[in-house]
């Protein structure tokens, strides 16, 4: 059940994506997508409103992926991925236009957006069945570009923050991680150990152009780190991270504070030294989506969505690390 306009929001069937506006500190806008639709909050998560649901009563609209334009503040563009296509909104989620993909329709599992989207209009959609679809006209048309992509079941997709220069995109599939260095037109497998796949989550450093840093969270082999743009990978030796890593999120101030978060099936962990040491951040199980923003005090604010359907904040307490996700307590 979905209770509209409530502070303690639950999404039936689980949360698949939670995204903060690039200008979150001033517009307080965040989105959460899940098995029963897409929700929007304009007051930093205090109240949530249904932004998109099924057109027919009784039907459920499962939104698996969500991406906001880097210039969201001005263009209000966001994309939602689901079975059969991609939805685009030009007005911050008030109205939507659908791009239905050709049959047999795939399920869009992840969306990656160019960091210079207003300029190049490039958008990627990773699918469970048809590999990667690329749009160079802002999501109006999609073309399949799967050269070298041995596995077309895409679990997650990330675009380099320096995409305009390096044309780099990474995807993880059930059987490996693949990299494209030519804007998603062809793919080469990276050297992740075979025993480590599948990688459930990927995260790319905001300073990727300089540090080449990339993290991959696997299903059964814990967390992997690459410091050379995916050429080689090393396992992060921490027993607590040995289970499935559902999601990874860099702090928005990563370049100065070197902090990042990972969510396992047990809880959220936090590192402030680029993944060397890890601390427990919040004991919230089955977190499926993470998004991080600096709070007004400069501490990271973590928006989390769980497999059981809760969405809320995991706040940092200066005295003790603890979770304060009201919605998740239910």
């Amino acid at each position: 059940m979905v209770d509209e306009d409530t502070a303690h929001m639950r999404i039936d069937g689980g949360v698949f994506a939670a995204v903060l506006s690039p200008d979150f500190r001033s517009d307080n806008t965040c989105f959460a997508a899940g098995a029963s639709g897409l929700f929007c909050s304009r007051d930093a998560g205090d109240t949530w409103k249904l932004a998109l649901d099924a057109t027919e009563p009784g039907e459920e609209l499962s939104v698996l992926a969500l991406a906001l334009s880097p210039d969201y503040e001005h263009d209000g563009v966001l994309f939602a991925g689901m079975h059969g296509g991609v939805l685009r909104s030009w007005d911050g989620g008030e109205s939507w236009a659908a791009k239905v993909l050709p049959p047999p329709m795939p399920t869009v599992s992840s969306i990656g957006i160019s960091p210079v989207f207003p300029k190049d209009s490039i958008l990627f959609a990773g699918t469970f069945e048809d590999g990667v679809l690329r749009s160079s006209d802002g999501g109006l048309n999609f073309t399949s570009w799967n050269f070298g992509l041995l596995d077309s079941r895409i679990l997650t997709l990330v675009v380099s923050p320096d995409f305009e220069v390096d044309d780099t995109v990474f995807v993880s599939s059930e059987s490996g991680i693949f990299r494209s260095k030519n804007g998603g037109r062809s793919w080469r497998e990276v050297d992740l150990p075979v025993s480590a796949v599948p990688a459930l989550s990927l995260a790319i450093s905001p300073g990727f152009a300089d540090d080449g840093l990339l993290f991959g969270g696997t299903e059964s082999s814990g967390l992997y780190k690459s410091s050379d743009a995916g050429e080689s990978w090393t396992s992060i030796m921490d027993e607590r991270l040995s289970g499935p890593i559902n999601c990874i999120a860099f702090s928005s101030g990563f370049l100065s504070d070197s902090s990042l978060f990972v969510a396992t099936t047990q809880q959220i962990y936090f590192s402030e030294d680029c993944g060397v040491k890890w601390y427990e951040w919040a004991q919230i199980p089955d977190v499926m989506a993470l998004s991080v923003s600096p709070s007004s005090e400069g501490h990271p604010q973590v928006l989390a969505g769980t497999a059981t359907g809760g969405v809320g904040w995991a706040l940092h307490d200066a005295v003790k690390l603890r979770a304060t996700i009201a919605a998740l307590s239910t």
Partner: protein
Amino acid sequence: MKKNTSEIPKGSPRVVFQPQSGEALRRGSSILAAVVKPTLGPMPRLAAVQDIMMRNGVPELLDDGGNIARRVIEIGDRDADVGAMLLRDALCTMHDDVGDGTACAAVLFEAVFSAGLRYAAAGGDVMGLRSGLDKGMRLILSALEDMAKPIGGEDDLVKMARTICHDDEMSETLGEIFDVIGQYGHLDIVKGKRKILEREYVEGSYWESGWLSSRMITDSDKRVTNVYNAAVLLTNISLTDQDIPRLARLVELAMKHGRDSLVVVTPGVSDSVVGLLLLNGKEKEDGKFGTLAAKVAEIQPRQTLDLEDMAILTGGRVVNRDAGESLAQVKWGDLGKARRVWASRHHLGLVGGEGDKHKLRDHIVSLRKSISQIDDKYLRDLTITRVGRLMGGAAILRVGGDTDSELEVRKDLADRTARVLRESAHHGVVPGGGIAFLHCQRLLLEKASSEGQGFGFRILADAMEAPFRAILSNAGFDASHYLMQVRRSDLKSAFDVRTGNIVNAESSGIMDVVSVLQSACRTAVTTAALALTTDVLVHRRQVDPVRQAHHDRQMHRARRGVQ
């Protein structure tokens, strides 16, 4: 009294010994080397070859050493002809294998062979020299490999292509294609209908086969059959009327498991089988069940290999006639699965095969490993094509031209450039313009004193200058003037004959494919060593072509029993 060779009647059998035989080999090979030498470098000169078909008496203008050598089928001097044909054979073989570097090989050969002959004439040990040349060649090959760097992205590929074809449009198109498809990518170069170059990218994997009946076409405009969410039967059994009940069972199985179509890949089907498939194609309740019978290559080993690849891509199993199997034994798990299957008259394509990705990856890795161990060119090319297919995606380049002959020439050029680009992506590149060989010269001279085979090393060291000198000479520069400058510079520098300056090789795109240089060196040195140890030339009786034709006719009549 010794008889002068010029007095021997033309066409009579003859034996020629040293020193005449060595001199004759040098004379002939020098003529051929001189023919192809002007084509070396970025500013090649042309060779006008008289057209063998005598079409309007227009000569063929060629700038490619391999093709020029191939056109030289005889030179007047019978003794020298042996030398010319020895070198010609080596160059043609290299051209077929690598597609480039024949002029460089010819220049190197001439330098090594001439120096070797002088050494032999001075009473040197030729067999010892041969051993030295062999050791020196290995040193060069290894030094070149150490120098090689992987080729970068599209820009580097375009620059590399430009050094081969000297055609901006073709360079840019092929550079883009190889950036997308990679070193193993499946590229078909075909004749186009328009005057320009056109490229098309095809999703998934495709084979040269096609539908078995045009009645299965679903898109009549493109004359293509498309079926989705398909179960795929792979077999080398030609299906006859007896297989109809078994095939009907497979159609039911596919429907029962929620598939939207059944594809049968087989060498052949009877009309009744086509009828059954068409009938079942319309029988599903929602009328959307698709059927497709597509043929598989009939020649071996392609049939077996194609079926094996399709099975791995789709997760199916080949129902094998040779193992005594029939359709009666086929279970649901034996059928492959794919998101989309398409077939045109000449092609069969699979998109989104649902086979085990780990198995697919292992298969690709084992094929890749086997490529370097396959000596047979056809099988090696076939294996590269298979890897490209399995990796998914292919490109088609349609080459156009104003006239048929221009089209042929451009297609051949595109083929050659593509082959070199593939090599460059596979083996890496070194500084071009003869610079890489000059750096080997230093190494050879260092080793010459420490190795017992000093002469072989020194001859090779001197020969390493020959490509650089030839390139500059072809562009109108005095090589001696620039040789010292280039020697003093580092490995990143090269002489740009277009500007007359020493420039950064990489940024200026003056690069050579390392495997081409290695092949040129290997061809030149092994052929020269062979020629140096050849002491005797044996000429057979030359048969008058008119008498030969008369003789052939008589033999033919005798076989038919005609009196």
